[in-house]
């Protein structure tokens, strides 16, 4: 019996030429495209496609805090809601927030907090709403990536952007940017959120088994993936704010 650690599957996750089920090389991310400023009402917004993931992010604030007792006289607060649309996955998802979504909202909030200069806005809240319209593995990294761009688009002062990308293990090989198939049938998934200028990891989770060496390798290539994603984030902001009129 072949024991790969993941679920039994007929899919070939990695062929003899080192090509993955969706045609990528082991250290290649999916195609990422980001558009900043896609919503009219939100103070900042972004639409991100991360492979087959499609996620819309809206930012409101700094604004009054309701309920009021949550407000803090020393600092602004960041609130994040990660939510999956019922039609975003194969079988309809119950629209009520699941425990998984509550946890992801929390880890994304804690991944963004180091980047956002909340002390500038005491007694206010900045609300980040991430709506997953279509999910295909790696939604938390994609949502985090989009959220950073939306926060920047809202003009919230930030120390850095946070870029997200997962590393993992499938077919006994360390791979970059785990897709849904690889997550289901693979051996490990290690999502990373990274601030490229401050060189700090602000989101990190893992499920699956990694040896200490594989763990190091995953963090290394994951950070590398985040740096690639960061370039696309910057481009999205440049496209919106600098490309019209003059081209420098």
């Amino acid at each position, binding site marked *: 019996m072949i024991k790969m650690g993941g679920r039994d599957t007929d899919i070939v996750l990695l062929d003899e030429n080192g090509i993955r089920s969706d045609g990528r090389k082991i250290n290649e991310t999916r195609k990422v495209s980001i558009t900043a400023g896609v919503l009219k009402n939100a103070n900042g917004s972004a639409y991100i496609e991360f492979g087959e993931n499609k996620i819309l992010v809206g930012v409101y604030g700094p604004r009054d805090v309701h309920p009021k007792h949550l407000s803090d006289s*020393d600092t602004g607060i960041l609130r994040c809601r990660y939510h999956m649309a019922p039609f975003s996955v194969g079988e309809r998802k119950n629209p009520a927030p699941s425990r998984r979504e509550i*946890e992801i909202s929390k880890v994304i909030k*804690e991944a963004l907090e180091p980047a956002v200069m909340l002390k500038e806005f005491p007694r206010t809240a900045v609300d980040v709403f991430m709506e997953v319209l279509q999910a295909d593995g790696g939604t938390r990294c994609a949502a985090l990536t989009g959220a950073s761009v939306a926060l920047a688009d809202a003009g919230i002062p930030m120390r850095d952007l946070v870029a997200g990308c997962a590393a993992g293990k499938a077919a006994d090989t360390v791979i970059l940017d785990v897709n849904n198939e690889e997550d289901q049938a693979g051996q490990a998934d290690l999502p990373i959120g990274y601030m490229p200028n401050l060189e700090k990891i602000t989101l*990190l*989770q893992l499920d*699956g088994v990694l*040896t200490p060496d594989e763990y*190091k390798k995953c963090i290394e290539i994951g950070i590398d993936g985040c740096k690639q994603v960061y370039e696309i984030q910057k481009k999205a902001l440049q496209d919106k704010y600098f490309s019209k009129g003059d081209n420098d």
Partner: protein
Amino acid sequence: MGSSKIIDQLKKNQILELLKEGKRIDGRALDEVRELTIDVGVIPKAEGSARARLGDTEVVAGVKVQPERPFPDTGDQGMLICTAEILPIAHNDVETGPPGPPVVELARVTDRGIRESKMLDMKQLVLEKNKSVIGVFCDNAVTDHDGNLFDACSYATTAAINSCKIPKYEMKDDAPVKIENEFDKPPISTLPVSVTMAKIGDYIIVDPNFDEWSIMDARITITTNSDGNVVALQKGGQDGFTQDNLIKCAEISIRVGSKIRDIIKESSSGVN
């Protein structure tokens, strides 16, 4: 609210001053875990149980084992569900009611450590494929909160499952019937152990107590298995870690975790 923030700031200053001299407020070394005692079999009506006391943090974990209808996509595997709740007797700040995000996270991190380590060989917990499987439910009740609930729940859960007994069933007319007083050992393949570290300033400390927990900048929980591999991980808190921090934290977790694994093994010696 206002005054407690000032106290937290003063506390943080004091903790940081001590850390500069390599000391902690309770006298421990930076990589020293509080005293851990584990008693198994404390709830005879549960098929497995453990009380873990980590310093002044205490958790009671109970395992219930019962036949279940399998999930449609995993008819060839048993069922495993771990939960955690913080009881109102555990701390002045605990409120009753539906769990907030921190408690949801605690329960999910506890579950993930056990599940992802494949501690239990789920294929051995099938009564009849696609019809009936054995469900293992491990529920954690935090009874005393002095920080680092993640690790206390991890140790209690691992010890409770490791020392549990699986009732025997026979299939009669497509339904599982329990055979009284006959038990199997649980199909244990590895013992997952989490180690939580807090980052305070530039210092990394192991097993933060309540005071350290309340002022830390960020935390990381790393779960390792008996082979010394990393099986689950959770970062939390309002700051980040450098790449070097993460490598160092994994090394600490493997080293400290293996000592804790010995305590867990010791606690259930003689049971199975």
